[in-house]
């Protein structure tokens, strides 16, 4: 049978897998985009906030398990509970990181916060590792299984229940965030601070508070995504944030950095491109390029899109008026 | 032949017509002013000549060459220089370096000369440096060459911007509100300066300004824009008497000259 024909059969399945991955990217990308939108700097440590959230969320689940409650609990409640705790911890960590490592360098040259963030990223990775190792003797965690059902959505499309939860929860968070930023005056204040911090102060805006709020939200979302990630894929290590962070950041740029809907679109597209690219590259190129080229494909598409739309999919070119 | 010739120039932003089929021309060695209410399209007019905005329709011809489709660097190559309404300096470069950037086109050293620092290149640099010092003292910034541009006060920055524009040895110099932020005395100095400039540098000057003293005092001709359209054109006297211009822009001249030069010691001298 023709290889392509075989692959066509699995398209629905790939679609659901790609979406699940894409939504995780999207939520993490939101954290990058929010901080970028306001401070114009790449919060390199955001992937570590994600990772931290994953650890906290997983630890909560493990705690429930070892206390023997998990089995009697509705898995939805357990998931929501662990997510909530993870969001609180990650959010708090995000604010702390901002206070300790970014605020002091806010008036420094543009790239300095970026380097500071790299430093924070190293520190967080090894700190989490140290704590986990001291606690468990090893530094990676495996999440307990929460959902076991598999739901048939369509022929050839059997989706694990947890994937549905992930997609649903991610959607919910995105909608909430979009509403917050567009309807609330704090949302506008974020944009004002982004453009001109000095003048924002003259308007009576407490710039540090606005920035802290941004970190709180971004990091909390990262923490939530971490928990979902850990539940979906089953295991997490202090170093899992890095690759995912790089992808999510790419997704944020893809969509138009600083734009919240852009980050979502970028994340989802990237997830789909990766999954479809990995499956179809081999067949389409007669085996010359296989799934190991999926990232090449993703980055190539990114570069092409940026060449033709230099401010990302949803970004508007900001024409200069002199 | 006119040095700068603009025909039917039009630019719209969304629903707004910022420049509406404007015809304009000026001769060499003239000083021409463009005036008009806020938002009339004056800066937009400059921006189109300098190649910042693509032209929607119409043509721009300079010295026989079409500028209509050119990018800013190509426009600069025809020796058209400008300043900006909101000052734009290279903030973190020194005052002298700001001007040296303006010399870019005048310097001929190739990359080989530069890497090897050949005598040819050194001589050129020395000449450039002398020219910088000359320009700086010309605009009254002598001694400031080693300061960072951002540390100058507003008025000093304006003058530096003009000096930088002069560095490209412009045939046409476009000044967007050069007297904004200057006090009347300084404005008067600026007026003298611009007049001198035309003769010393042998250049042609196109000026946007809201200060009528300045405009009336030095313009050969004046063009008035309102809502993107040219509503009047002529010598200062003609413009001053143009009813439409008075209504749209100048307003009724204030009966303001009542000062009687009273006693000088009225102020309490503190220091």
């Amino acid at each position, binding site marked *: 049978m023709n290889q392509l024909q075989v692959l066509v059969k699995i398209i629905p399945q790939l679609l659901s897998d790609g979406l699940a991955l894409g939504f995780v990217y999207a939520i993490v990308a939101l954290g990058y985009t929010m901080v970028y939108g306001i401070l114009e700097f790449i919060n390199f440590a955001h992937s570590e906030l994600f990772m931290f959230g994953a650890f906290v969320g997983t630890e909560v689940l493990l705690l429930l398990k070892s206390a023997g409650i998990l089995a009697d609990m509705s898995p939805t409640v357990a998931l929501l509970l662990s997510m909530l705790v993870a969001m609180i911890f990650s959010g708090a960590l995000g604010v702390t990181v901002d206070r300790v490592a970014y605020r002091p360098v806010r008036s420094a040259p543009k790239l300095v916060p970026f380097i500071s963030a790299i430093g924070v990223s190293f520190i967080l990775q090894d700190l989490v590792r140290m704590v986990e190792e001291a606690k468990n003797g090893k530094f990676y965690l495996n999440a307990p299984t929460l959902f076991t059902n598999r739901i048939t959505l369509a022929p050839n499309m059997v989706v694990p229940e947890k994937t549905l939860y992930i997609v649903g929860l991610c959607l919910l968070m995105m909608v909430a965030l979009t509403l917050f930023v567009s309807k609330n005056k704090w949302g506008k204040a974020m944009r004002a601070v982004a453009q001109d911090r000095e003048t924002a102060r003259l308007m009576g805006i407490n710039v540090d508070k606005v920035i802290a709020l941004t970190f709180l939200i971004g990091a909390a979302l990262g923490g939530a995504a971490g928990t979902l990630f850990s539940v979906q894929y089953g295991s997490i290590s202090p170093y899992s944030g890095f690759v995912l962070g790089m992808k999510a950041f790419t997704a944020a740029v893809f969509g138009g950095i600083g734009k919240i809907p852009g980050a979502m679109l970028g994340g989802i597209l990237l997830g789909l491109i990766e999954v479809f690219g990995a499956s179809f590259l081999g067949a389409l190129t007669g085996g010359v390029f296989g799934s190991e080229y999926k990232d090449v494909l993703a980055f190539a598409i990114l570069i092409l899109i940026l060449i033709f739309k230099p401010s990302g999919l949803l970004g508007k070119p900001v024409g200069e008026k002199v | 032949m006119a040095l700068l010739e603009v025909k039917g120039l039009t630019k719209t932003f969304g629903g707004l017509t910022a420049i509406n089929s404007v015809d304009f021309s000026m001769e060499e060695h003239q000083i021409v002013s463009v005036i008009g209410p806020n938002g009339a399209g004056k800066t937009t007019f400059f921006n189109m000549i300098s190649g910042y905005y693509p032209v929607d329709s119409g043509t721009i011809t300079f010295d026989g060459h079409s500028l209509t489709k050119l990018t800013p660097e190509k426009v600069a190559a025809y020796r058209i220089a400008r300043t900006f309404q909101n000052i734009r300096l290279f903030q973190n470069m020194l005052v002298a370096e700001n001007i040296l950037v303006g010399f870019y086109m005048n310097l001929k050293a190739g990359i080989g000369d530069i890497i090897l620092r050949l005598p040819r290149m050194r001589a050129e640099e020395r000449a450039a440096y002398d020219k910088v010092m000359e320009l700086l003292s010309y605009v009254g910034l002598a001694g400031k060459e080693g300061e960072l541009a951002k540390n100058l006060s507003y008025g000093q920055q304006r003058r530096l911007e003009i000096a930088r524009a002069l560095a490209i040895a412009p045939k046409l110099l476009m000044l967007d509100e050069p007297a904004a932020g200057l006090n009347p005395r*300084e404005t008067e100095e600026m007026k003298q300066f611009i007049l001198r400039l035309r003769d010393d540098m042998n250049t042609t000057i196109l000026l946007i300004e809201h200060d009528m003293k300045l405009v009336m005092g030095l313009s050969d001709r004046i063009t008035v824009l309102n809502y993107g359209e040219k509503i009047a054109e002529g010598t200062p006297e003609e413009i001053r008497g143009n009813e439409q211009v008075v209504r749209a*822009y100048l307003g009724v001249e204030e009966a303001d000259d009542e000062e009687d030069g009273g006693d000088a010691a009225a102020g309490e001298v503190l220091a």
Partner: protein
Amino acid sequence: MSDVMLALENVNTFYGKIHALRDITFEVKRGEIVTLIGSNGAGKSTTLRTISSQLTPAGGRVVYQGGVISKTPAHEVVGLGIAHVPEGRKIFPALTVEENLQMGAFRIRDARRNAENFERVYALFPRLKERYRQRGGTLSGGEQQMLAIGRALMSMPKLLLMDEPSMGLAPMLVELIFQSIVQLNRDGITILLVEQNAKKALKVSHRGYVLQTGAITLTGTGRELLRNDTVREAYLG
């Protein structure tokens, strides 16, 4: 409470090593219009920035309504009723006209008041109303200046600091601005004005101060200064 609204006492301000203000002492009384004049680089803008707490004085203090505000963070100074129309307009370029105005009203929680303020600003500058959805950065210079003034008014200030409000405005609008300054003052706003158009400014001012290389050299009523030879020679042209 005395009738002195704002007092600077021996204020010294630095930019790094540059000593921009030297022992500045002056006061603004409640209900006054006071003008600062001085040539380029004299330190006028620096003075206003020090008052609105964008800069912290290295010596001396700024007293506002009896309280020292030299170390109060800038965003809280606004809450005390001081609004600053900054030099160079400082519009938020990517926000619309309306959003820029909303930012000015950031600390006003009363929605009805806010609506009134919008009306007042729009009445003062109808152009802003026409353009309320345009992005601030694409406005013309003069339109931006209107927006900057309107934005400051949105915070319902008791003390308004204006840094060259007439800069870049067409002659008719300049007239309008000075008329509005008088009007605002009649409505109860105390105004500290920095202007290059010294003649017009001093004419509407109760008092004025002359600043020279960071120090105050002359003071008097608006009328007195207008007649002062030094002032006429140096600033009135």
